[in-house]
Each structure stands twice: as structure tokens, then as C-alpha cells.
């Protein structure tokens, strides 16, 4: 039985369809990365799994039951996107407060040590740096010895070394993780399986390698009149007189441009951002 499961789930906020017929299972021991641009529906899906929101249609299960039922949330841990710790509480008190909700919590000292927070136990959270706050917010997800942890953009806003340290701590966790990110790098570092979400739909659900190839696009920009249909081009758009060609293989595309005798000037090649890759992926779908 999957630990968490969404079956044909849709979620509507007024006129906006945030999730459109999404199905997703999280199995035991699996680290699943939810990848997608801002507004793709990642957080909405997470909020359905952790019982903060209800699906407009479809079914969401947590350990075979309703996530809205507190008993089903005994074996999960959550790090929300926004940290928002009570600023006057001390680090140790935040841990104790969360621990009071679980039958067999990780001892405070052990948890703080695991996340490199031991020296900060007596500090009020309002005085912590952004990275320290984030580490504490992630640590809190692990207090109750969960089997499944939900991390919403766990390392957003952290510098490289802080990010790596946090990844290390997450990787040591033996249970399942569902994490969202808009960094491919973060998903690569942590996840076994990647689910790409765009426009409220699942665009891809595959291994890291498969998804990397899917989203690793390059943008070839040039000035010119007309570009004929070329094999290497996935999509094409124009703005301000520039033609932008999205391609998985920029070398092949350049060769094809030259061979086809296309008149062009000011050729530029950029690695496409994930955002652009997602947009390409989304427009291919529709």
C-alpha cells in the first residue's frame, strides 16, 4: 500500500484550477521530488496530503485514510514553504512543543545535533539567521519519528554550503520523502523519482535521468527573417525581432541552420532555465 496517494485529484480556488486530475503515489522508502515552476500546483498538492486543504474532486489518502484525521498524521512530518517560527520561543522550546504531539519523539538533543543546531537550543528563533531558521523548520519535520516527510522547498534562500548540509541531513533519513523544489539540482541531489508538475497537471513521472533529459533544453536565439522547420527544434517563438529556438541539442541545431542556408545574425546559445523548459513541456502537452 502506498503511504500517500492522490487519485484523480482536482483542486479549484474560485475560478483557478490549481490541480487538474492529478494522480500520485508515494511508496515506502522512496524520495519523490515534485518539480515545477511557481504556481504549478506543487504546494497545493502538498497541502492536500498534509490535511490543510481538501480536494475539490478525487481522493487523497494518507496511510490509507483521510489526511484531515489527526491520527493519520501521526507518522508524517512537515516543513512548510514559509518558516514562520514563533519569534519569542527558544529553539529548544519549539522542538519540545512539536514533540509533545507525538508518542515517541526524538530526544531534543539528538535532533538538534543531527541538524547542527545544538549550540542554538537556548536562542530565541527571532534572533536566528535565515539559514538557521530553515534548518530548524526542517528539523521539526523529523521530531515525531515519521515514516513520510513533506518538505516544501526546504532549502530556498540558503547559500550553497547550508544547502548541502541540509541535504546531507535529509539523505540520512531512512523513510519516505515528498519534496517540492524549483531547482533541478536539489531534486537531483535528493530524489530517486521526479514528478514534474505544470499548470496543475502531472507532465512527467520518471527517474531523475529521464526527467533531466526532458528538461535539459537549450535556447538558441538569433536575428533573421525566417527559420524553416528543423528536426532539432522543439519549439519556436519570437519577440523584439529575435527568434528563440528551444532544442535538446544546440550543436545539432546550429549545424542544421548552416546546412539549411538560413540567413541569421547575432547567434546566442543559453542553457534554458527550468521555467523555460517547463513552459516548453507544457505547451507540447496541450
Amino acid at each position, binding site marked *: 500500500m502506498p503511504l500517500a496517494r492522490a487519485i484523480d485529484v482536482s483542486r479549484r480556488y474560485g475560478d483557478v484550477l490549481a490541480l487538474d486530475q492529478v494522480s500520485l503515489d508515494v511508496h515506502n522508502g522512496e524520495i519523490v521530488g515534485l518539480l515545477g515552476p511557481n504556481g504549478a500546483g506543487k504546494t497545493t498538492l502538498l497541502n492536500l496530503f498534509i490535511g490543510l486543504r481538501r480536494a475539490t474532486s478525487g481522493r487523497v489518502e494518507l496511510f490509507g485514510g483521510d489526511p484531515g484525521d489527526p491520527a493519520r498524521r501521526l507518522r508524517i512530518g512537515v516543513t512548510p514553504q514559509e518558516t514562520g517560527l514563533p519569534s519569542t520561543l527558544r529553539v529548544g522550546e519549539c522542538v519540545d512543543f512539536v514533540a509533545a504531539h*507525538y508518542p515517541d519523539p526524538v530526544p531534543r538533543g539528538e535532533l538538534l545535533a543531527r541538524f547542527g543546531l545544538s549550540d542554538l537550543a537556548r536562542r530565541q528563533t527571532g534572533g536566528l539567521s535565515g539559514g538557521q531558521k530553515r534548518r530548524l523548520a526542517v528539523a521539526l519535520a523529523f521530531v515525531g519519528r515519521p515514516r513520510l516527510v513533506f518538505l516544501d522547498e526546504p532549502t530556498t534562500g540558503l547559500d550553497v554550503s547550508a544547502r548541502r548540509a541540509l541535504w546531507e541531513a535529509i539523505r540520512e533519513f531512512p523513510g519516505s520523502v515528498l519534496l517540492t523544489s524549483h531547482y533541478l539540482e536539489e531534486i537531483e541531489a535528493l530524489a530517486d523519482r521526479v514528478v514534474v508538475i505544470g499548470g496543475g497537471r502531472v507532465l512527467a513521472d520518471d527517474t531523475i535521468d529521464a526527467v533531466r533529459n526532458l528538461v535539459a533544453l537549450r535556447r538558441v536565439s538569433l536575428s533573421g527573417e525566417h527559420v524553416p522547420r528543423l528536426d532539432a527544434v522543439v519549439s519556436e517563438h519570437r519577440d523584439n525581432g529575435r527568434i528563440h529556438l528551444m532544442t535538446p541539442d544546440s550543436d545539432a541545431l546550429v549545424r542544421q541552420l548552416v546546412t539549411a542556408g538560413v540567413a541569421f545574425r547575432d547567434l546566442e546559445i543559453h542553457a534554458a532555465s527550468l521555467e523555460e523548459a517547463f513552459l516548453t513541456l507544457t505547451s507540447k502537452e496541450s
Partner: protein
Amino acid sequence: MSLVITHARYQFLETIRIPIAVIGAMFFPAAAMIFFVVPIVGDNAAAATYATASMVVFATSTTCIFSYGIGVAEDRAQPWDPYVRTLPAGSFPRFAGRILNGTGFLVLSFLPVLVIAAVATEATATPGRLALAAGALLAGSIPFTLLGLTIGYALPSKAALAVAQLLFFPLAFGGGLMSAPGQAPGWLEPISPFLPTRGAAELLWASAGGWQPNTTAVVMLAVWTVVLAVAGAAAYRRDEGRRYR
């Protein structure tokens, strides 16, 4: 039950770490006691007792409106609130903890009034009357708790602060808390019994000093309690519906 205590305890810690918030709640009623009650009616046992009761109602209504109104509105704006909702407990422990914590601050807010009354005035009350007054205060504080919760759940924090500030003084003055029983300005007397502060004050005057309570005021206090319970429940449900459905 232990979770209710846990929630109350940490909410209390959160507030008490900003001492000025607590001192603020204690200051106004204590200052009113020192500047108006002690020098003017301090020597008259009966008048001082009534005035002390009025100040306790003032402290209670003000603290309820501010601590629930602004506290709830601010918590709703923090991401910590939805995080706590993901812990394996329903919304009850947090809510019950809030009431427990609010009651604690309520006691803190009128404690100085009682101390000043005992030390610096002739106000007296037998233990029996004190117990009766405690019961009256418990009943009289319910509509203000509900009013605070309604404000907190219905409004964003800045609006909650403004509404709380707009309400507390007219309610206190209009309810006759700034004058001896039945001695409010003439134009106020016909209006006063329709305000919840007057009803609560009548209950306290009666329990602490043997005052003959005004029936209209007491009935209106019950009406306010029901109306504000309905309004509070509606605001709570609407907020839950917006944020968690």
C-alpha cells in the same frame, strides 16, 4: 487535555516574552484606579467597592477585546498557524489553549486593581462575596471573549487593532464603568443598559456590593452573549473555510 495545557503554555511563553504587551494590559486599569478611584472615593467603603468592581470589568473587557482580537488576527497571518494544523492534533487543543492562556492574562490584568483596592482604599468584600464576584466575572467575561474572537477571526490584524481601539473606550464609558453605579451622565443612562459592559458591571456590583441589578442590563448581557457566540462561530467557520477547505 495535556495537549491543551501544552498549547496554552507555549502561547503564554510567546506573549510573556514581550513584557510590554503584558504591562500594557495591566497599566490602564491600574492607572485608572490610582488616579480616579483612590483619591475620589477611596475613603468610602461602599463607593470604593463599586468602583473597584467597575475597574475589574474594565480590565476584563479591554483585555479580552485586545488579547483575543489582535492575538487571533496576528496568529492567523503567521505561517506557524497552518504548520501547527499539520501536527497530529485537531484544532481543539490550540483553541482551548488560547482560551486558557487568555484567561491567564485576564487574571493578570485585574490583579493590580484588586491589590490597589485592598491596599489603598476602604473597599471591602467578604470571602463569600469575593467568590460570588469571581463567578459573576466568569459569566460577564464570556461575551467579551466572544467579541475578541469574532474580531480576531473576522479581520486582518491591522483592522483588528483599529476596531479593538475603537470599541474598548466607548464600551467602557458607555457601560458606566467610569462613574458610580447609576451616576453616569443623564444622557447615557437610557443607552447604558444595552451595552454588554453595563450588564457585566451590574453583575459585579450586585455580587461584590449588594447592588440591585438592572434587569434590562442583565437580560441584554445574555442577549449579547448569544449574538456574539453566533457571530464568533460564523467568523471562525468562515476563516477555517477560507484557509483550510
